[in-house]
């Protein structure tokens, strides 16, 4: 069971991407896919949007899976393993979760289940780089998310000029030199297949 997280700040397009990835992965008929969504707030809007698409989703409420409800997350993963034996679990943490902490929480499930970790894919919203990076408290969080990424997908590239994407790329490179950088538009499908390939071929 490979666990791949789709992280990134609020509103960066995580739900749209996770839907696209799940449809591709499950649609081929070769992979059994489960989705886990964690949201701040009592009403799991993202979970409802995903369920409408016909995919089964497990909502985790009551806090953030990277800290407050990390043990619930691990139990959820083990429950999925036991009952459903998926090949892939796609995880959408809250927009403020820290990817390395989500990874640690996911590894807790590995004590009882055979799990491997997929890449930590972090989305960066290219329509608002300054808003995200230049604000004191938020900037620190977004930088941490980017630092933790194995793959950074610059999202919403269809909404801005190429020069804006390049600006985002330069700023991200100053933060994380190691991660692979990709352009992404979940609406047009640009970059989705590349991400699928990375998930399938990723070695823990």
């Amino acid at each position, binding site marked *: 069971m490979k666990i791949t997280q789709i992280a990134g*700040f*609020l*509103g960066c397009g995580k739900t749209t991407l996770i839907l696209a990835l799940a449809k591709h992965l499950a649609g081929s008929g070769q992979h059994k896919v489960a989705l886990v969504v964690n*949201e*701040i*707030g*009592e*009403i*799991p*809007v*993202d*979970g*409802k*949007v995903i*369920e*409408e698409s016909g995919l089964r989703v497990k909502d985790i*409420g*009551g*806090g*953030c899976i*990277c*800290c*407050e*409800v990390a*043990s*619930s997350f691990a*139990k*959820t993963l083990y*429950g999925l393993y036991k009952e459903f034996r998926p090949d892939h679990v796609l995880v959408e943490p*809250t*927009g*403020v*979760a*820290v990817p390395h*902490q989500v990874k640690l929480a996911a590894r807790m499930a590995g004590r009882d289940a055979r799990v491997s970790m997929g890449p930590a894919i972090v989305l960066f*919203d290219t*329509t*608002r780089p300054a*808003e995200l990076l230049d*604000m004191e*408290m*938020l900037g*620190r*969080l977004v930088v941490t998310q980017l630092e933790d990424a194995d793959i950074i997908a610059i999202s919403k590239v269809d909404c801005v000029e190429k020069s804006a994407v390049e600006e985002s790329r330069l700023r991200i490179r100053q933060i994380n030199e190691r991660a692979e950088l990709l352009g992404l538009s979940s609406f047009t499908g640009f970059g989705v297949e590349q991400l699928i390939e990375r998930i399938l071929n990723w070695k823990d």
Partner: protein
Amino acid sequence: MAEKGCYSEHGVSGYGVAVKVSRAEPMDDAFIKGLCEELMLSVARKCMELGARCIGHIKSHVKTQWGTIKADTIGISHGAYSGGRVERPVGEFYLAVNSIVQGIKEDVVKAATLEGIHETVAERGLVVEKEKEHSYFDEFDFVASKQEYIRKLEEQLGEGSSPKAGENDR
């Protein structure tokens, strides 16, 4: 609250609510989408006026007898977007709103969200019939059946993995 989440550390607060609204005159797809988009911007505007530093994500989900609509915004300057479809005009619908904002506390996000909902629907002649802050056990469950939610909750309670499940019975 036993432990603060990472979002508290970064000054991020979230609030979610579901309402049932109705109007004597049937409402079509375009009307509901317009209402939801305006609602998203209204909540965002109120949050900023109340001291928010950044709109994280304000999102909504509408469930009707004839289909669903979702709408969201990441800030006033970014505009609001909606998707989905309601096939036929309806007299009532359920609306869930989740507001996640940076720079103001949860009670302020709550005030902005509720004020935004009430003002926006009243301006368009709708009446709020019911209002609820959680989604378990009742007609505010938009997608899963009541039995399915009860099953899931019992499962979670059995595992001891839903710290807020008891608290949800407000």
